[in-house]
Structure formats: C-alpha cells, structure tokens
C-alpha cells in the first residue's frame, strides 16, 4: 500500500489545485463563497477528504462542514425522509444503491459535463441516471465487495466459498447483516450454488448451513465493526467492501479472493450526489464535486481508500492491482449486481435473516 505521506499529499494537492483551476474549477468574481454540509463515511474516507478540503477551502473560500454516516450509507435515506425538504445536507458521499434510492425520491440535482468539466474523463457507465437519462451522481471510486481472509490466521489457502463449511472455520466468519451492501452477501452465496439476484434461495440454503454449523462468529453493520473484527483476529474470513479490506491489509497479510473459480467479485461505484437546494448552494456543491473528480485529486482521494479512481486520467494505487480486474478478466471474475432489484428485496431479506438465521446463530 502506498502511504499518503505529507510529501505525496503536498505534491498531489498542488497538482490537483492547479489541474482543478485549469480544468474548470476556477472561481469567477460572481461565485460567492458558500458553506456546504457534506455527509461522508468515517475512517479513511473522512481523513483523506479533510486533507483535500484544506487546499480547496484556501482556493475557493467555500467552507465545508462534515457529518459522518451512522451505520450503513442507506441510513441517510431514512434520516432525510422525515426532514425533506428542509435538509441541511448539500452533498452525500454514498454508493450506487443509495443514489438509486435518492433518485427515486427526487432529492438529487442532475449534473452535467458542461457545468463540471472533470466529469468528461469519467466513463459514462459509472454514472447513476434518472428515468430521463440525466446524470445524477458524481462517481469518484470504483469499489468492490469480495471474500477474503487473514493469511496469518488461516492454515491453508481458501480457493472456494464451499471450504467455509469446514470445521476449521467454526466461529471464524465475519459477514454483513443483509441490509449492508444491499444484500451482496446473499447474492454471493446464491451464486455459489448456482443462483442469482432473482433466484436467491440457494443463497439462503448455504447461509443456513453456515449458521447451523456455527461458522458465523460475527455479524457486522459497518466498516468500523468489520475492521475491528478482522484486525483483532476475532474472525479470520469475511465478505465485505474493498475499502474496509484495505484498512485491514495495511497491518495484516490479507488475501482478497477476487478471482475465485466458482464465484465472482462485485463491482460498484462510490461518489457524491448533490442534494437539491438553492441555486448558490447547488453551484457550490457542483464546484466541490468537480474538484474531487479532477485527475490528481481523484487519484489522491482513492489512494488511501484502496479503491480505483474513476477519472480515466488518474492512476490507481499499486496495491489494488491484484484486487481489481484487467479488461479481459472482467467477464470471468466480475459481476455487476442489479442493485435496483436487490434494493427492493432488502426488507424481505432482513426479515428472513431475523426469523431464519439469527435463531440459528444463537444455538
């Protein structure tokens, strides 16, 4: 992992600021400084964002206040609902299914390449769109969810999810509650047994086997719980997002199983969504999101997260080369889930977990 040291940060931020100013983030006299409220994840996300914003604030005068996600990112949707339209948030850092939920609620401001020139370098497929085909998100990171394990705690390499049923993994599995990652755990288990999003029963069957055998030692709700469970050695095998895995990889030998012969890795995008508000706030929000999408800043943002930059002119960190796929590997190892469908099933899956799985975990 390449550390984000002071030298690298200063060089990067200098280049980023220059690129941003040349690339369209230049302030005109008519642009008044604004105060923006941005919702961001904790841990590495907020750390790198704060560092980037130090330079941004000096350049633009915009002041940024942060609020951290509590629980999974989808929780922000539940938080906004009762407050809408009197919401204090201007930008929300989240991922594809959360963007879809907010698009459905009609809370988001569309973005355009004309207003935000840095978006021209981001592949169109990465954007979340509304029914009219308008771009509704600012993708900053290509992320993924994978199985993986601590190599120092597992005696023999894992080559298939089926191996997790072996007695040596009793109490050693860490899995997310099915509402996390919009139920990707259910999907990976279903795919292991020949199912998919719409044929999820094989996944429940495998999950019940794992629960009945006592393999699941920890059910987590967020990145911090995952990092604690894996870093403390309480559990040694897990399925979770690459951002959280990266934090574990910094300190422990960790194998990410992104190239399993009988399963897939799940890819998705993270980034910003701009919440509807008055004209000046929206303009400032677009300015801010565009800055994060410029090549140097996008590169710098993703480096400590262990995620891939979305700007095609930005370089991914060396440490994630072994995790993400080369173009010719995508068809074989990667899977883009139908998050819109899965989001519609999460309520049902959560209830099935509560009634069919939790009682098994307690026995």
């Amino acid at each position, binding site marked *: 992992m390449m550390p984000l040291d002071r030298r690298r940060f200063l060089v990067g931020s200098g280049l980023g600021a220059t690129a941003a100013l040349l690339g369209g983030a230049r302030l005109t006299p008519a642009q008044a400084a604004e105060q923006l409220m941005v919702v961001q994840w904790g841990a590495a996300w907020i750390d790198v964002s704060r560092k980037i914003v130090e330079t941004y604030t000096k350049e633009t005068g915009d002041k940024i206040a942060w609020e951290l996600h509590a629980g999974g990112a989808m929780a922000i949707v539940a938080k906004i609902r009762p407050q809408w339209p009197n919401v204090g948030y201007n930008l929300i850092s989240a991922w594809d299914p959360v963007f879809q939920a907010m698009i459905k609620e009609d809370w988001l401001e569309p973005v355009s390449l004309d207003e935000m020139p840095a978006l021209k370098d981001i592949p169109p497929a990465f954007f979340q769109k509304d029914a009219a085909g308008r771009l509704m998100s600012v993708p900053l990171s290509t992320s993924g969810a994978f199985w993986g394990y601590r190599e120092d705690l597992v005696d023999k390499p894992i080559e298939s999810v089926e191996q997790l049923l072996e007695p040596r993994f009793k109490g050693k599995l860490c899995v997310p509650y099915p509402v996390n990652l919009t139920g990707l755990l259910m999907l990976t288990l279903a795919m292991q047994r020949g199912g998919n999003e719409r044929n999820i029963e094989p996944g429940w069957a495998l999950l019940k086997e794992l629960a009945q055998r006592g393999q699941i030692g920890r059910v987590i709700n967020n990145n911090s719980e995952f990092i604690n469970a894996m870093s*403390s050695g309480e559990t040694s095998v897990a399925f979770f997002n690459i951002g959280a895995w990266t934090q574990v990889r910094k300190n422990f030998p960790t194998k990410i199983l992104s190239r399993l012969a009988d399963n897939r890795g799940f890819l998705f995008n993270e980034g910003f969504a701009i919440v509807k508000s008055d004209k000046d706030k929206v303009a400032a929000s677009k300015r801010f999101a565009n800055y994060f999408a410029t090549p140097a800043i996008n590169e710098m943002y993703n480096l400590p997260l262990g995620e891939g930059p979305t700007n095609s002119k930005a370089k991914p960190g060396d440490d994630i080369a072994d995790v993400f796929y080369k173009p010719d590997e995508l068809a074989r190892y990667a899977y883009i889930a139908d998050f819109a469908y899965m989001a519609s099933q999460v309520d049902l899956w959560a209830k099935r977990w*509560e009634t069919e799985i939790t009682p098994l975990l307690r026995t």
Partner: protein
Amino acid sequence: MTAGAPRSWGLVAPALLLLVVGLVCPLVYLARESLHPFVDGRALPTGWTVTNYAELLRPAYAFYFFDTLRFGLVVSALALALGTPLAWIAARTARSALRRAILGLLIGLLFTNLVARLYAILVTYGTTGPFSGFARLFGLSAASPGFAAILVGIGLLHFVLPVAALTLIGTFQNLNPRLEEAASSLGAPRWRVALGILLPLAAPGLISAFLITFAMCISNFVVPLLLGRGVVLFTTNLMYVRITEIANYPSGAAIGIIMLVLVFAIVYGLSALARRLLPGEATS
C-alpha cells in the same frame, strides 16, 4: 376539590404540556405510523393495514420479544441481588469512609460513559482480550454466541447496577433501625428480622428498583449492539434496522408499540402482584 386546586393545576400545567407534546404526541404518531403499509421508496405511505403487527406476531419474532424480556428479568434480578448488600452497607455503616467509597463507586460508574465501559468489557473479555479464558468458566469459548449473550448481560449489569443500588440506599435509609432493635430485643433471630421486618418494609423500594432496571434493560440499544456481535439482538436493534437501514418506518413503529404494550402489561402485572403480596401497599 379545594380552593388550592386551580393553583395546583397551574403549577403542573407546564409539565403536563411538556409530557403531552414530548411524549404522548410522538407515541400516538408512532402508533398511527405502525398501521400504514410499507411502500419501498415512499416517505409518506397512504392506506391502513395490520400487516406490520401480523408479521411480528409470528412465532419466529416471539424469540426476540422473549429474549429481550428474559435479559431484562435476569439482569434486573442480578442487579437487585448485587445492589442490595451494597446499598445496605452504604445506608447503615457507621464508617463514613466506607459509605463515601461505595457512593463514589456507584456515582462514578453512573457518570462513566457507557460506551467506554462496554468497550472496556469487550477488550478485556472479548475473543482477543487478556481474560478471554473467562468464557471457559461457563463452559463456552470466547467466540461462541453463548458468551456474547453473557457479555451482553454483564454490559447491562454495568448499566443498571448503580441505578439499582442508589435507588435502594434511599429505601434502606428510610427504614427505622429501632424496629430491628425492637424485634431483636423480643428474641427474633437476625434472619427473621430480615425476612419478617425489613423485607416487607423495603419491598416497595425493591420493586421500584426492579422495575426501573427492567425498563432500562429492555429499552437498551447500545449494549447488544456493541457486545452482541450481531447474534444477540434486542427488539430495539430490530427497530433500528427497520427504520434507519431499510426505511421501513411502519414495521419499526409496530415493534415499538408491541414493546410498549408488553412493558406496560409486565409493569402493571408486577405492581398488581406486589399489591396482593403486600396488602399494606394496596392503599399506598
């Protein structure tokens, strides 16, 4: 009604107003919300249904309600068992240093952040803690779900023990020591003084302490969240997931209303039982 009654109403009116606005209104709204159908992606669903309650009355969900109430009853009983001697010594000891030490400990625990205390338990007795072998005393491994349940119990005890003991100190201080002396002088052995004189007199305080700790236990959210490792879930955790993660407000509201009704029933039942067992309390 006396002439002072209007003035009394004037004094209690602000508190009553606050109670209605801050407590009754949200609960009424919660009950109303629980009768709406869940529509994914709709903030304000229309229509009425009892599906949210029907779902929760399935046997599978009885497990959660039973488990939550079981933790409440066991931990409250333990809090009374451990808090009573502490409170008794603090109330009756002639050594002021000892009284101050007990009070300091209890109040100190009360003011120490609960999350910090829970993480202290986790790092000490958790799977990688220096005392993870503690689990073997119960015939369990530190990574087992059974031990997660024990840690949740210990966490709840941390939370309610100071409250139980401090509540009981007041109760014991109000017991007149001369009653014990009179009973002893008439030849009653110590156990009979304790069971025949002190226990009936302290019963209202003991019941109050039990009910307070019981309510604190079953409404707790953070203890199972941090120590339950995702395998010990209280009804509050189910509510949290429903409302904040899935935005299924109606189902979350239904869980809250069922818990409210159950708790009222249990508190009323225990109070009624106490009145029957302690006739003197019937008029109080």
